[in-house]
């Protein structure tokens, strides 16, 4: 066993801007985002790509950044939760819908949940309830019972049968 660490130089696009970072070959994208680039919005939970908390978008597709080697992201277009709102602070419609529909409580699954939901609507702008459930099944939330998350996605898709909160 050797303790010599192999350092690689990575260049990719992150939230619309070119970034360049040195990291160890074995580092995951989540580690690079959180520890090297100080973007801690990406959360690490299960570490075995089952819970979806660490979801980020790579070339518009959701990936589990907890097991995705940072090296794999070279030259690609990565979007993390920090890249969703507009520079003037205006929230992405999915972020706003999560607030409006009370679609989170503790918030730990929320960044991954929002990015997965965005990926769904990018691919299928008017999904049925069943399609939402099928697509989102890889993201776990322990607080909300999922119902308000489905509502938030339907709201952005324009398919929510409205029942306003009191």
């Amino acid at each position, binding site marked *: 066993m050797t303790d010599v660490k192999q350092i690689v130089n990575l260049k990719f696009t992150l939230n619309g801007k070119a970034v360049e970072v040195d990291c160890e070959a074995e580092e995951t994208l989540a580690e690079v985002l959180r520890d090297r680039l100080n973007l*801690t919005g990406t959360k690490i939970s299960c570490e*075995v790509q089952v819970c979806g908390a660490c979801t980020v978008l790579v070339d518009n597709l959701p990936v589990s950044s907890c097991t995705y080697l940072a090296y794999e992201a070279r030259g690609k277009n990565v979007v993390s939760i*920090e890249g969703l709102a507009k520079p003037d602070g205006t*929230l992405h419609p999915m972020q706003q819908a999560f607030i409006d529909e*009370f679609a989170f409580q503790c918030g730990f699954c*929320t960044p991954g949940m929002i990015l997965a939901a965005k990926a769904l609507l990018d691919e299928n702008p008017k999904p049925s309830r069943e399609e939402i459930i099928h697509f989102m099944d890889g993201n776990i939330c322990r607080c909300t*019972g*999922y119902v308000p998350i489905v509502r938030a996605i339907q709201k952005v898709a324009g398919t929510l049968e409205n029942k306003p909160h009191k």
Partner: protein
Amino acid sequence: MTNEKKKGEFQVVNHSVPRRDGRAKVTGRASYVSDVKLPAMAWAKVLRSPYPHAKIVSIDTSKAAARPGVYGVLTGNDLEGINPYYGHAVKDHPLLAIGKVRYVGEPVAAVVATDERTAFAALEFIEVKYEELKPVLTPEDAMANDAPLLHDRQFEAGALRGFEGEVTAGKKSNICQEHHLKWGDVEEAFKKAAAVVEGEYYFPMTYAYAMEAYVAIADVNDNGVTVYSSAQHPFMVRHDLKAIFNLPVSQVRLIVPFVGGGYGSKSYTKIEPLAAACSWKFRRPVKLQLTIEEAMLTTRSDDAFTWMRTAVDANGKIIARQARIYMNTGAYAENSPLVVEKSTNRCVGPYSIPNVQIDNYSFYTNTVPASSYRGFGCAQVTLPGESQVDELAAKIGKDSYEFRVMNAAKHGEEFFPKMRPFEGSLKEDLDIAAKALGWKEPIPKGHGRSIACSTSDAGAYPLTSTAVRVHADGSVTILTGSTELGQGSHTVLPQIAAEELGVPFEKVHVMSSDTAITPYDRSTGASRTTTLMGSAMIDACREAIQQMVAMAADVLKVKVEQVEVVRGGVRVGELQLDWSQIISKYYALPDGEVIGRAYIRKAGRFSQIPVFWETVSTGVEIAIDEETGKIDVEKLVTVGDVGLAINPALAEGQDIGAATMGLGTGLYEELVYEGAQLMNGSILEYRLPRFKDTAKEVELNLVENQDGVGPYGAKGGGEGSLNSMAANIANAVARATGVRIRHAPLTPERVWRALKERKAQ
């Protein structure tokens, strides 16, 4: 009392104001302990025991300690100079195993290194020699005459208060705690009963599964101990740390930023002592971040083996209930002695039963220590309790919903001797549940319906304080020791302050859960924050207003009696001043502040225990596939009897969240031990509710009769809808198939086997 305003008259309260933490949480800016870094911070990783019960013969850490980047290795032999035992009920829990390990997964040593990978890589270089001892794995093992004792010394008491019994732990047996409840004469009542049902039930061990695993960053230096933690109860952790390090309260600081889910599993002290001991020994800030698998080796809920019988008279009135419960509490007591007391009390249910006898024992075993979990022992006993209500109704040919209504405790009724009388509208709640579920409508083939209910002696112990700072510009900072776990305290508490001070919600800001700054609050659990911290908030706002009335009188040179309080300020004759103007005039500068404060104790309106009764009715309709035993939830109904919802959307969110966890334990959640080994201690094997498990239809209801002791008649919520879910599943299966299953969770295999047995008969 503070319920002078009626529903419909509130400006801020009783509205579904968007969450205060919303923007932070949807943009990734919300900070959790896992996101915190301190300068010069080291990382710790833990070596865990491979044996359930063994003597530690020797530990050689030299090779691990010599590795590059390692600052040192801490073991149970290095704790001289501190008091290494802690525990909320009794101090039976060493922060690292000392001389002996008591469960597979117990921390044996911790490596502290420059980074997490280096610390982890060093673990395999620690050499531990064990001498195996006979393990005790179940209550049955623990009771055996030749059972080895897990603990063989007397323990010092922990911080547990408001507790009726003494803790049994450490008294020369493996009984961790026993609790007994008795009124009336059950023997006599069962003799003269018109019908009796009797059965044995099992409620499984479960894991709360917060998405954020336990994490703590400790910095121990000459100024004392500072810990950033994912703890629900920072003041309770402070209590343990001050004893471990023999420090005054003022030198122990717990800081809790946003918590990534708790559900009771982050109650009380967990990994903070170990992180702090690492920092103390190696003289630098240390971060200890567990993995989910390690978190599952840190705590779980108590499983329960319950024998219960319930009797009715000829009029269909429940006249007696008796139960004997054996709980498996694992290697250390943690908060389980309180779970034992609470589950004893919660056997009674929301019914007026004249003869009751409950005998409840929890046992130390060589398994992961059990402690608090959402609902505090209520789900464990509501499976038998609400199953038997259905079984009895069926036996005497009554509709189970009508049978419940007939036996429901009534508002103001002293249904539980020496406790606060029942508060709530259970009949109304059940009616709403029945209507929402379409109770009287024909049931499709293969479907079953159930309505169930529970009440919990909730609110924990009433000791809470707060301060409200009104600034010279009219903005407000509230200081609250309650932690934001996601339940919404950062939204509900400023709503209450805004209502009281008559200022916009946006002007009230929250400073929370830093024991060096925020006044004492005993805990964030048992659904107590809205009721207790909310009440303190009202009192503190009103005290601030009184001070500002006196200030207004002073600056305007009038008598205090001439100053009339109006929304957001005062009026003296034609002159109106808002809070900002009063404070600025008082200090003769546009600066300064007024501090209102409040202390809640077990006195006055909070003199009776429980603080409140948390009462929830729930209902399900399920579809069952008899070929596979698989159950789908078609419809889910909750009815929270909350007095007044300070924020209805948040209250409903608590109800559906808790109900979903309850469905998990009703349908598939279960920690499985095979011998001494936890077989499914990871997300890959521990089945959690997912998107695909959501009910097709959901109806969430709140009953708001302003009959609680809290703000404007509010009572707590957030746990209740979990409690009756496993019973609902069992009852609905019984209605659909005629087969009564008394063992949760009702997994497809368990259901399929039960149906197969029926066919065989």
